[in-house]
């Protein structure tokens, strides 16, 4: 199975005032694209648009595998996303949350598989309801959510937010591995502890893109 290609074509977004960003275009087949910019530049909104969770004011997103554009349903499972406003059911445990989201997405959920996914992000207390989780534990669960359906492309918004040193190292490892096999888009204000991105897209008055390696 070939890897995914993400194409952003002249994306613009505005709410009630001036455009948040305008005419953002890029093509990403593999590797890491870091989206940077000041607070409020539209990084989170851009990732939501790429994930299909928000609509652009103009432009479009095309996500394709071997030239064939994915349907909306395929995009749901093929593109993993996690962001700071991703929340979980507070009454349920981490394992129950992940199990539910897998079934709702149309995949079976086996307990061993779910526990392995939680172990991989350093969550080893499946008995506690999510409402008792710390900020860092919630962030680890967001990373597990993004990778829950073994996606072909990953979009991560501030993936290191709230994590301790072990968590930051683990997530940096996930990002590097994901970038080796498919496209990864990161939104981050600070790239210091993340793997070096292949390209950087700086959102601002002029959307500038440059390679780093």
């Amino acid at each position, binding site marked *: 199975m070939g890897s995914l290609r993400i194409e952003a074509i002249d994306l613009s977004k505005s709410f009630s005032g001036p455009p948040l960003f305008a005419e953002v275009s890029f093509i990403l087949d593999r590797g890491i694209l870091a989206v940077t910019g000041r607070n409020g530049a539209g990084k989170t909104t851009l990732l939501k648009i790429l994930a299909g969770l928000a609509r652009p004011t103009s432009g479009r997103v095309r996500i394709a595998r071997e030239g064939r554009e994915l349907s909306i349903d395929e995009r749901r499972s093929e593109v993993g996303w996690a962001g700071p406003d991703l929340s979980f059911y507070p009454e349920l445990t981490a394992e129950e949350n992940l199990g539910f989201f897998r079934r709702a997405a149309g*995949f079976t959920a086996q307990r061993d598989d779910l526990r392995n996914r939680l172990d991989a992000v350093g969550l080893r207390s499946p008995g506690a309801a999510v409402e008792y989780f710390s900020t860092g534990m919630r962030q680890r669960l967001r990373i597990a959510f993004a990778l829950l359906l073994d996606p072909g492309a990953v979009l991560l918004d501030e993936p290191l937010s709230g994590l301790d040193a072990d968590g930051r190292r683990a997530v940096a490892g996930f990002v590097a591995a994901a970038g080796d096999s498919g496209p990864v888009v990161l939104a981050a204000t600070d790239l210091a502890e993340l793997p070096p991105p292949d390209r950087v897209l700086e959102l601002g008055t002029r959307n500038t893109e440059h390679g780093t390696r």
Partner: protein
Amino acid sequence: MSRVSVGRLGFFERALAVCAKDAAQELRRRVAIASVFFFAATAIALVSYAVGPFGLPPEARAGVNASLLWILLFFSAATGLPRAFVREEETGTGLALRKLAPGVVVLAGKTVFNFVLFLAIAALSVPAFAILLEWSIGSPAALAAVILLGGWGLSVVSTFLSALIARAGQRNVLFVVVSFPLLVPLLLPAIAATVEASRGNFAATPLRVLFAYDGAASCAAYLLASAAWED
């Protein structure tokens, strides 16, 4: 990011997953269940105290009791059923759900949960209502058919409206205002069929109207689910 071999679930299994999740949440927190049953118990107590078994002449009892029963069921439902989608927005989980599941799957699962909740309300409140008002039901089977058909229509419309209003302000007021014109065509035949059931008759015409309403409401909800929830 290698893809693992997994079984794929169909529409009904995915919808049941949503229903089971809602049930698990509700059983742990008991917000909707507690408010619905408290409302129903209070309403039955007040109605039985105000009207009582002897407050009405015998010939008026069937009509008044049927109307009071459906008012009770409607407002009990209006207390709990709209929470289906509103809760997703309150907890911030709507984003994750929209990411992974199409609106029609979520709507179907939440409708089934609301229908089960409605049947639980009816299973407790109808016998209590009949006992306290000494209301004899001539045809319990006909009444059960009315409750099932009326309950399904009420659940479908309430759940769909819940998806529509979930991100609006003043949700509770909006729900009652919007649901009134949509649910009157359901409540009138339901009351008519309940009157006949209490007299021991199986009223075919109102039941056919209820069946048609349920079919139309289910089709409309199916077709509009994505627009209501995802956009």
